C-alpha cells in the first residue's frame, strides 16, 4: 500500500447524509472481476444528472470529498472504495462513517477522516462560496485546512500508523504464524469443518 502523510486537493461538497454504498457504486458494476477501472461507476446514477456536483467544474477534478453523516452505509462492497480511488479521491471527510466502509478505506489507502459536523458545515460553505478551494489533510497532525479553517479530525491510531507506513495487513499478520498455528491446535473437535462435505 502507498504511504499517506499529507494530501492537498480540490474539495467537493456533497451535502447529503446516508450516502450508502449502492449510491457510491450500483450493484450492476460489481460483476467485474478486476480491482481497478471503476472510475466510470462512481455515483453512476447521480452522475446522469447534469447538476450533480461531480458534473460541475472545478469539482470534477476534486480529490477530497466532504460528505454528510453516515457515509458508506449498507453493502460491504469494497468496490465503493476502489471507485472513489479510481476517480481520484484520496480523502473523504464525514462526521460519521459506516464501520465496514471505514475499514475498507483503511485497507486501500483512502483516508476516511472523521470531522465534527459543525466543521463540515463550515467547509461546505467555504467550498460553495469559493469553488475550487483546496483542502489540505495532514495525517501526521490529524488536521484539515480549508481556507481560514483549521479543523482536527479523528482516525484510529492503528489505521493511522498503517497508512503513514503504507503497511500491508496480511504481511503483518503472517509475522504471527506461530501464534496462529498454536491457536489452531487448541480448537475443540466439535467445531465444524466444511470438508469433507456431508449431506
Amino acid at each position, binding site marked *: 500500500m502507498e504511504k499517506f502523510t499529507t494530501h492537498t486537493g480540490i474539495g467537493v461538497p456533497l*451535502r*447529503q*447524509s*446516508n450516502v*450508502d454504498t*449502492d*449510491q457510491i457504486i*450500483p*450493484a*450492476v458494476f*460489481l*460483476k*467485474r*472481476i*478486476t*480491482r481497478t477501472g471503476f472510475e466510470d461507476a462512481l455515483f453512476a*446514477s447521480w452522475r446522469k444528472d447534469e447538476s450533480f456536483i461531480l458534473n460541475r467544474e472545478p469539482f470534477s477534478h476534486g480529490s477530497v470529498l466532504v460528505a*454528510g*453523516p*453516515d457515509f458508506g*452505509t*449498507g*453493502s*460491504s*462492497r*469494497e*468496490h465503493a*472504495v476502489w471507485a472513489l480511488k479510481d476517480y481520484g479521491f484520496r480523502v473523504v471527510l464525514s462526521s*460519521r*462513517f*459506516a*464501520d*465496514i466502509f471505514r*475499514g*475498507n478505506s483503511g*485497507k*486501500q489507502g483512502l483516508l476516511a477522516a472523521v470531522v465534527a459536523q459543525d466543521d463540515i458545515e463550515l467547509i461546505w460553505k467555504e467550498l460553495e462560496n469559493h469553488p475550487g478551494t483546496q483542502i489540505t489533510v495532514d495525517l501526521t497532525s490529524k488536521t484539515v485546512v480549508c481556507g481560514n479553517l483549521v479543523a482536527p479530525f479523528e482516525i*484510529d*491510531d*492503528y489505521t493511522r500508523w498503517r497508512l503513514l507506513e503504507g503497511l500491508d*495487513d*496480511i504481511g503483518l*499478520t*503472517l509475522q*504471527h504464524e506461530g*501464534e*496462529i498455528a498454536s*491457536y*489452531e491446535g487448541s*480448537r*475443540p*473437535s*466439535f*467445531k*465444524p*469443518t*466444511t*470438508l469433507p462435505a*456431508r*449431506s
Partner: protein
Amino acid sequence: MGRTLAEKVWDAHVVRKGEDGQPDLLYIDLHLVHEVTSPQAFEGLRLAGRPLRRPDLTIATEDHNTPTLDIDKPIADPTSRTQIETLRANCKEFGVRLHPLGDKEQGIVHVVGPQLGLTQPGLTIVCGDSHTSTHGAFGALAMGIGTSEVEHVMATQTLPLKPFKTMAVTVEGTLKPGVSSKDIILAVIAKIGTGGGQGYVLEYRGSAIRALSMEARMTICNMSIEAGARAGMVAPDQTTYDFMKGRPHAPEGADWDAAVAYWDTLHTDEDAVFDAEVFLDADELEPFVTWGTNPGQGVSLSQTVPDPDSFADENAKAAARRALEYMDLAAGTPMKDIRVDTVFLGSCTNSRLEDLRAAADVVRGRTKAENIRMLVVPGSARVRLEAEAEGLDKVFTEFGAEWRFAGCSMCLGMNPDQLAPGERCASTSNRNFEGRQGKGGRTHLVSPVVAAATAVRGTLSSPSDLDPLPTSSDAASPAAA
C-alpha cells in the same frame, strides 16, 4: 465483572491480544464465499503466491448474479457469467467446496450456512457480504467484511479487529397476530437510526426474542447492519439446539454433548454491563413499513407518510425531502393508500421456509390484485424443494405469483430480476436505497405477511385488512345461498 455474550465469543477467539491500541487478532471459524466479493481476493492470493490456509473452514455458493429462471441454460449476461465462471475456477484451484447453480445445496449464502448446520453458536463467521450478521441468530459473532479482509482471511484464517462496544436491544412482551420479527427490526432501526449501531455489536434479548423461531431470529440479526451494527446476536437456547440437531454438519454423539455444554455458557452474565441499551415493547408493535430511501425511514402501516418538516434535525429534514421526491410520495398520505406494482417475497432476510409458509397462509384461496406482479424466490434450492413438498409452490402459482429458483434475485439489482424505473415494490428484502432493486425503482420494506396481503389488495396492507374468506361450511351449506 461478568461478560456479555459478544465478549465471551470474542475472548475465545483471540489469537493475539493487541497492545498499544493495536487491534486483537481473531481466529475465524467459518468463511463463507460468493462470486461478487471474492475474485479480487483470490487474485491477490495468486499474485502474492499465498495458499488459502484453511479450505476446510471455507465454503462457497453462487447467489448474487444467478438468474431465477432458466437456470439450466448458460447465464445470458456475459459479465455475470464470467464472474460465476471465475468463482468456479478459483474454488477448483484453491480446493474450496462450492455449491453451484443447479446444485441442491445452492442458494443465498446466509440461508445455506444455517441449513447445512455449519452455522453454530460461539463461532466467528465472516463473509464478504454485510448481511453476514444473519448468523448471529445462533449466538455466533458474524460480520460482513470487505474484499481486502476476504483475502486476509483466506491467507491467514484470522482478522485484526478492534473490540466492539455492546448494545442490548431488549424486546419484552408478546407480538400481536400479523406482527413478525421483521416488524421488530424495522422498528428498532427507525428508533436508533441507520447509524445508531455503529461501532456496536447488538444483542437481542427479552421475552419476545426468546419466543421467536430461528428463522425469525435470523431475520432480526440479518438487518443489524441496517442499524449500522456490523453484528447482531441472540444467545443460543433450546430453540437453537432443536434447529441444529441432525443437520449435516452439526456435531454428533460425544461432540454434540461437548458442544451443548459449551453453548450453554454462551449467554450474557447477570452482572455484565452493556455500553448502551434500547427497549422495545412487543405488545405495542404493529406491522411496520418504510416510506423513504433508507431503512430507518419507516412508520407503522396504519400511519401516514411523514412531513419532512416534522424532523428536528436539518440533515434528517433534507434527507426526508429528497426521499419523498424519489419515492414520489406526498406527506400525509396514508401508507395503506399507496399502490404498488410488484411484490417481492425473498432475500436473505425473508426467504426461508417459515417466511414462505406465513405468506402462503395469507394468499391461500385468494386472488392476486390485477395490477400486481409477485415474485416468490426461495432462499435456497433446498428451501424450494421443501416448500414444494408441502405444496406451497401450488398455493403461490394458483394465487397468480411466479415461483422462481433460489438466489438473491430482486433484492439488489444485479441479476435479471429488477424493477423498471418508477416501479413501486413491496419487498421483504432489507434495503430501500435509491435504485437498489433496479435503477429508478421504489422500495417499501415489509414483512412476508404484509407482502402477501399487499399482493391481494394491490395497496400496502396487513392481513387484518383482508376480507374474511368464506368458510367451508358457508360454501357447503345450502342455507347460505
